[in-house]
């Protein structure tokens, strides 16, 4: 596997309209953040 060809480090976001399109495309499922909350309370 070639990291340079597989990971798309330069791609797509060229304009403010692109950013708006990304942030306005809302998710339609509710992810479970409880495991991360649990981790957060385990360290000071």
């Amino acid at each position: 596997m070639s990291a340079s060809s597989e990971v798309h480090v330069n791609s797509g976001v060229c304009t403010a309209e692109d950013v708006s399109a990304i942030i306005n495309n809302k998710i339609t499922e509710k992810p479970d953040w409880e495991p991360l909350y649990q981790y957060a309370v385990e360290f000071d």
Partner: protein
Amino acid sequence: MIPGQDLLPPEVQDDLAVLFCDAVSCIAEENGLPDEVVDVSSNELALALSEARKDLVIMLTRRVALTSKSGGPEKFNGLSIGKLAGILVFRLSRYRIVHVNTSAIKPTNARALKLSSKIQELAALRFASETILKVRPLVWHPELLYVLSRRHINQEMLGVTFDVIATYCPNLTTTSPLDKPPFDKFYKRAS
């Protein structure tokens, strides 16, 4: 592509501010923190987003210049969503944006007290995962939370990390599919 193009004009910064505040509210609600103990500084939030805008202008200018040396600016294909998320998460976790009045939390509520000290970093990660990357929380989130809140990382390394995550982690479902135009140019999966 114009070098120095503004990816975060004021109206986009306003939208991002609302979405970040939504993430803070969701985390507070899901962890039993009453609204009255959580305060978001609109001034600090605006400063963070303004600085993120400058980071993006600089990154864009630098990358267009680099691409110009190897084929012309027209070869530049835009920044990745990982870089966008990296810059935003860095700035949203560094300014004094979220304040929790822990004196209003019962000393016996250890969960709320401990979570309060990382709520801003939690919100930045949740905001980036849901709003930009569209990835579900996975095993990499705890490590990033720790590094972000207690160790050191900069916007560029966060960007590289998010690039890998965006390429390999399963996506959340969205109103418009990520594998169809115009979103397929931002969300490219590993082949």
